[in-house]
C-alpha cells in the first residue's frame, strides 16, 4: 500500500511536468483503462457509450491534472470523474430522447437483450432489471462493492459519503435485489 502511494505520487509529479507528461499519461491510461471501463459500463450498460465516456474521462483527467491537489488518491479522483461523466451522459441522453430518467433506464435494460456484447443469461438480465429499479447511489454502491469488489474506504473516497451510509445503502440494495430476483 505504501509503495503504491509513492508510485502514485511520482506518477502525478511526472504528469505535471511537460517533458515527462506524455509517457506518464500513457502509463496512467494503461493502468486504469480496464478498471474505469468496467465502472462506467456498469452505469451506462452499452459498450459504445462506455467507450465514449471512458475517452471523455481520460481527456478530462489529462486537462485537469494540474488542478489535482492530491487530497484524495489519484484513482479515487479518476473514479469520481468517471462516475460524474457517466451520470451526466445518461442525463443528457434522456433529455435528447425526451424521456424521463426511469424510462431511459428501462430502455437501456431492454436493449441489452439485443446487445452483442452482453453475454448474460436470464438471471443476469433479471439482475440488470433489478438494478435499474434502484436509486443511483444504491446502484453505484452495490456494483462497486459486489462486482468491482472495492473496499468501503475506497468507495467512500469516490462517492464522498461516509462508510456508515454506504453500508446502509449496500444493505438496502442487496435486500431489494434479492426480493426482485425471488419474484417470478
Amino acid at each position, binding site marked *: 500500500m505504501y509503495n503504491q502511494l509513492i508510485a502514485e505520487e511520482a506518477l502525478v509529479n511526472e504528469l505535471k511536468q511537460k517533458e515527462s507528461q506524455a509517457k506518464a499519461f*500513457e502509463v496512467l491510461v*494503461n493502468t486504469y483503462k480496464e478498471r474505469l*471501463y468496467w465502472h462506467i459500463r*456498469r452505469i451506462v450498460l452499452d459498450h459504445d457509450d462506455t*467507450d465514449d465516456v471512458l475517452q471523455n474521462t481520460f481527456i478530462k483527467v489529462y486537462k485537469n491534472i494540474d488542478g489535482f491537489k492530491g487530497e484524495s488518491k489519484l484513482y479515487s479522483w479518476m473514479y469520481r470523474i468517471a462516475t460524474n461523466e457517466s451520470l451526466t451522459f445518461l442525463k443528457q441522453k434522456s433529455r435528447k430522447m425526451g424521456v424521463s430518467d426511469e424510462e431511459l433506464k428501462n430502455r437501456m435494460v431492454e436493449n441489452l437483450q439485443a446487445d452483442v456484447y*452482453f453475454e448474460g443469461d436470464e438471471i*443476469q438480465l433479471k439482475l440488470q432489471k433489478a438494478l435499474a429499479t434502484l436509486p443511483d447511489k444504491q446502484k453505484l454502491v452495490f456494483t462497486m462493492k459486489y462486482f468491482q469488489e472495492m473496499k468501503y474506504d475506497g468507495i467512500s473516497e469516490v462517492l464522498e459519503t461516509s462508510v456508515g451510509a454506504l453500508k446502509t445503502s449496500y444493505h438496502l440494495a442487496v435486500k431489494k*435485489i*434479492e426480493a426482485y430476483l425471488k419474484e417470478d
Partner: protein
Amino acid sequence: MKKDKQNGFNTPEGYFENFHERLMDKIKKEKAQTESIMPKSDGFGVPEGYFSGVTKKVLSKTVAENGKVIQLKSFRKFYYGAAAVAAVFLLIFGLNWKSDKPISFEDLANTEIDAYFERTEIDMSTYEIAELIPLENLELNDVLDKDIEAESILEYLDENVEDIEDLNLDYTNYE
C-alpha cells in the same frame, strides 16, 4: 438459568455463551442465500482487442493533440491562402448584401436557442440563473406567454400566503 436482578427477566441456559457462534452462523447462512440467488458476474463483454486499441484512441485525443501544434506551421501558407480567399468572398458578399443592422439576439431562431439548452448541461439552479439575469428591464410578461389577470394573482396570494406581512410590501408606494 441466569436471572436479571433488576427486573426479573430470564434467559435460557448458555444463551450468552454461544451467542457469537449463533450470530456468525446466521450471517453465514444469509451470505450463502445471497450468493445462491445473485449471479457473481454480470455478463458484460467487450469487442476483441478493445483494450489494446483504446489507449491509442485516448492518446491521439490528448497527448498527440498537443504535439500537433508544431505540425501546423508547415501548413501555414495554405491557411494564409484560405484566409485570403475567405476575405475576398466576405468582401463581395458584404458589398452586395449589406445589411442595415448587425446580427442581434433577436435574429437567432427560437429552435436554435431551444436546441442549445437541450444540448448544454447548464447545471445551475433556478436561483443561480435568476442571479445572472438583470431584473431592471424585465417585465413579468417577458417570461409568460399569457397575461395574468390581477384576480388570479390575488386568488393565488390568498391561497398560498399565510401572513400578508411575509410579502414585505412597501405600502408607502400605494398611498
